[in-house]
């Protein structure tokens, strides 16, 4: 029988709420000491159900130490939840102390939290790992009764998920049998997440709170102007988006990247004739700006908000009437969560519009709507734990208390993600932590860990000195970001910080260049002390277009949906006219892709040639394929220069054309053997993986500003380390970790193998005089992968002879006009 004290029930009554069945269920399970994964749709009081059991128990038993740990992937979420939980505690006058602990927490408060922990601590994976690195960790966490992990569906399939699962294994050693409570949106395969959350061999129970509401109403926004061939921002639809904002009380406009957010925000203000309050929200803005926007939205003072996934997680954004998704949805589950933001009333369906930014995205939107109708879901699955994160964890554990490899290995394999890590594999990681694990040169003078010779901890390993501990603590974390510059808008002699921007973008600017940031046009002045200084500009259009920023991969499921859609010419009838025309034109000029064969098109582009493979296998698989095929092209003398990938296809530019004869050579299955090995070794992709792995493993500093100032000399490129290591110790553990990181994060090898085997004899080759209609969205994508090797050097050599070719963009634009 569930025991919910009367005053808690009264509180629900006062709010005009009823205790929902899954909230009651979670309290019941808490009181029985059970671990549970709760899956429930957005906006159903999920987080509160994770806390209720703890709140009741704490107020009844008055425990001394830390009782409940709450882990969420977002700082902002922590603050939001802290506010909500504090509201109940204050209303009921409960004797419960709640505090949050993030990267922003002051040094004084952090110290106090270690000495006198609150009952409930809200934290992020990184901050938790930092807490676990202190000698007090065993004492501090020895009393926990429950760990609540929020947004599991977002975090489990990532290296941050690995951090959490390793932290859970450590906590299990300090306090065996604490409750593990996972909160998640509805996922396609909850059983995998139950395994992930539990100890190895002891998956937690699953409880699903079914969706009771009506299915959402989703449609493509009707516009006067046709959907363009290419683009990310859907400028063509701005006045229609504005019209929807005007009609509704409150609207969230979702985009996929920060730069889309900046651009769309500008476009909206240009047509915002009634000066409605519309704001922008993304993760690069300063905390103050973000907090202000959140507050205004929650209080209902905003009519529109242009936002990235930074607001996707469980934060309460007040009453939202309409959600507009601009750009491709990329995944069905993700789209449903975004749509779930609108209208929290159970009996009224959520209302959402999709605004595809280009013509391929129209197909993707259609496929997503079909899936929503059929109530199908997709989403990421937890993967085997990353070993670079294990390296970080080993050093973390040693900073807290003396360790032995055997004891630590036993602990790590208690995490389901690391259950298959053998002792031999682990030993190699441990050796890396000790001295880098270099076999050709004795490195014992610079060990990070040293073995104790005597005393109680004889035979245990401890950090060699304080500098090692300090450096490790400054570098905890697994999100390896590009270098960031603070953005300061100068005004007279003073100025205001607006947020952060990628260093590489800052470096590409010249004084006077204008660009969008924080919803303003800024004119670049200079970079000084890791700060980009700019002034407000009167210019309406910035000169520098900005395309960078995060990209989301298309889910396998949705890619398949698009492919199926293309098969079915009858389905074209419901497409907008321009899209239908585009596909029909393609069918006349070249051919439409079908399921039986792989369409490959080849055509000249200025002085270069372009070949396109319409694989529909998603971005990652196309990236790998691009790598392999361009290698083979190099071998047979076609001189590839660069390639572009989208979710739908792969385009390769080369000096010589691909022909009907050579195309079979390019797609021969043996590229998966020869080319894969050769190419991987020198590809920029593997270098990127190496950079991530080397940073997480602690070879180089994470790009935080303080470290930059003090240890400037470490900021040289990890590419240099990679090259030297590969030359002199190709068997080194970091190289194999980089390889598996690339396979895990980037390659999608299985998908690719299936495709090549299936289509090797079924290629539809189309030799064309100019780019086909279908190719335009692919080749106009500005994000290209540069290829090392002869092609680039040949091009550089041409540069020496004469200033020649016009820019590729112009050629394509001309082709479009004619």
């Amino acid at each position, binding site marked *: 029988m569930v025991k919910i004290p009367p005053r808690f029930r009264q509180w629900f009554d006062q709010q005009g709420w009823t205790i929902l069945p899954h909230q009651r269920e979670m309290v019941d399970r808490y009181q029985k000491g059970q671990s549970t994964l709760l899956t429930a749709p957005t906006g159903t009081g999920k987080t509160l159900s994770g806390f209720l059991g703890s709140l009741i128990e704490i107020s009844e038993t008055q425990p001394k130490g830390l009782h409940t740990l709450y882990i969420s992937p977002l700082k902002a979420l922590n603050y939001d939840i802290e506010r909500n939980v504090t509201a109940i505690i204050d209303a009921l006058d409960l004797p419960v102390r709640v505090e949050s602990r993030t990267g922003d927490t002051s040094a004084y408060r952090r110290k106090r939290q270690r000495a006198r922990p609150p009952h409930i601590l809200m934290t992020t994976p990184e901050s938790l790992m930092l807490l676990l690195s202190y000698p007090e960790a065993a004492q501090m966490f020895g009393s926990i009764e429950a760990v609540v992990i929020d947004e599991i569906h977002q975090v489990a399939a990532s290296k941050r998920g690995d951090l959490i699962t390793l932290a859970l294994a450590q906590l299990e050693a300090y306090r065996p049998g604490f409750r593990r409570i996972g909160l998640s949106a509805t996922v396609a395969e909850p059983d995998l997440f139950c395994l992930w959350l539990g100890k190895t061999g002891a998956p937690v129970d699953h409880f699903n709170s079914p969706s009771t509401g009506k299915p959402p109403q989703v449609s493509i926004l009707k516009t006067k102007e046709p959907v363009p061939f290419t683009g990310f921002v859907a400028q063509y639809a701005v006045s229609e988006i504005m019209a929807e904002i005007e009609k509704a009380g409150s609207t969230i406009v979702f985009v996929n990247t920060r730069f889309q957010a900046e651009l769309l925000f500008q476009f909206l203000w240009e047509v915002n004739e009634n000066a409605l309050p519309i704001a922008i929200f993304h993760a690069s803005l300063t905390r103050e700006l973000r907090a202000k926007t959140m507050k205004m939205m929650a209080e209902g003072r905003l009519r529109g908000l242009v936002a990235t996934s930074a607001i996707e997680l469980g934060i309460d954004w007040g009453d939202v009437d309409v959600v507009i998704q601009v750009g491709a949805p990329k995944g069905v589950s993700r789209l449903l969560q975004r749509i779930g933001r609108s209208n929290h009333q159970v009996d009224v369906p959520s209302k959402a519009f999709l605004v595809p930014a280009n013509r391929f995205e129209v197909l993707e939107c259609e496929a997503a709507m079909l899936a929503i109708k059929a109530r199908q879901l997709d989403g990421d699955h937890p993967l085997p734990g990353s070993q670079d994160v294990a390296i970080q964890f080993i050093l973390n554990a040693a900073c807290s208390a003396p360790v032995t490899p055997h004891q630590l290995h036993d602990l790590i394999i208690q995490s389901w993600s690391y259950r298959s890590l053998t002792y031999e594999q682990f030993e190699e990681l441990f050796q890396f932590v000790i001295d880098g694990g270099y076999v050709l040169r004795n*490195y014992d003078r*610079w060990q990070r860990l040293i073995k104790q010779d005597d005393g109680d901890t004889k035979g245990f390993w401890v950090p060699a000195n304080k500098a090692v501990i300090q450096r490790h603590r400054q570098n905890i974390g697994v999100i390896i970001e590009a270098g960031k510059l603070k953005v300061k808008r100068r005004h007279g002699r003073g100025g205001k910080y607006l947020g952060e921007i990628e260093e590489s973008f800052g470096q590409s600017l010249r004084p006077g260049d204008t660009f969008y940031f924080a919803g303003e046009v800024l004119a670049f002045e*200079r970079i000084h002390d890791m700060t980009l200084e700019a002034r407000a500009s009167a210019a309406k259009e910035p000169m520098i277009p900005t395309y960078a920023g995060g990209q989301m991969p298309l889910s396998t499921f949705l890619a398949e949906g698009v492919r199926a859609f293309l098969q079915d010419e009858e389905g074209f009838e419901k497409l907008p006219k321009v899209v239908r025309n585009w596909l029909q034109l393609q069918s006349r000029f070249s051919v439409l892709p079908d399921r039986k064969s792989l369409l490959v098109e080849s055509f000249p582009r200025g002085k270069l040639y372009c070949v396109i493979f319409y694989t529909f296998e998603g971005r990652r698989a196309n990236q790998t394929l691009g790598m392999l095929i361009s290698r083979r092209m190099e071998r047979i003398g076609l001189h590839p220069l660069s390639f572009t990938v989208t979710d739908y296809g792969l385009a390769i530019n080369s000096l010589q054309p691909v022909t009907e004869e050579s195309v079979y050579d390019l797609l021969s299955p043996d590229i998966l053997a020869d080319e894969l090995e050769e190419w991987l070794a020198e590809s920029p992709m593997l270098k990127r993986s190496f950079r991530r792995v080397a940073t997480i493993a602690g070879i180089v500093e994470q790009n935080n500003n303080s470290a930059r100032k003090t240890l400037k000399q470490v900021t040289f490129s990890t590419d*240099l380390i990679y090259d030297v290591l590969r030359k*002199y110790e190709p068997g080194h553990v970091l190289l194999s970790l980089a390889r598996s990181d690339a396979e895990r994060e980037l390659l999608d090898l299985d998908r690719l193998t299936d495709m090549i085997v299936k289509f090797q004899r079924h290629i539809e080759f189309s030799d064309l005089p100019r780019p086909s209609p279908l190719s335009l969205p692919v080749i106009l994508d500005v994000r290209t992968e540069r290829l090392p090797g002869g092609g680039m*050097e040949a091009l550089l050599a041409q540069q020496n002879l004469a200033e020649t070719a016009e820019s*590729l963009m112009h050629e394509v634009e001309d082709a479009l006009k004619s």
Partner: protein
Amino acid sequence: MRSSLEIDFAGQRLVLDAALGLYWPARHMLVVSDLHLEKATFLAQFGAPLAPYDTLDTLNRLEALVSKYRPQSLVMLGDSFHDRHAWERLEATVRQQFRTICSAVKYCHLVEGNHDIGLLSEGGLNFTDSIELDGLTFRHEPAVSPEPQIIGHFHPKLRTSLHGHRLTGKCFAVNQSLLIMPAFGAFTGGLEMRGPVFAELGAGDPLRPYIIHGRTIAALDLPS
């Protein structure tokens, strides 16, 4: 595709090699700069377990350059060692390799740089402040002087694009009176040529980049 380029600098014909060296045929002189030997072990002291093979790689490449040009003199233009204790940290075999390279040429000059000033070694290494020859001055950092200078210290590199393709590489930076060498060491980073430092160095007479990518070197116009 060129692995080296000849230029005229202050009336002298000089060869810029994509292998990061400068060869002066008239004087049979090979110049390299900023080797930063033992940088990895220097950083390792602070808890960064970098691959300790940078010195080996740097010297192997230097050896190859010496066998290619067979110069009479070899000039290391400063910061040959990453710090004053670097010599002590050299492995015995690598130390021997260094000596072999030096003795393969008639004259081996070590110009002093800011990193290796006061290097602790057991002798046999002679450092000099600068070298003057046929109107050219070789030193680590530039001096205020109207004379043409060949220097190191700044590690010029360039990030640019060609036909829409991104390209990054170490550079020789050259104008009428100044030639700045690229950094030779395996673990040396670079300083972007479009930054304020090079603008100041090339005030009134902009420095032109000769960019190195793979085994190719090419003159580029600095995107203004």
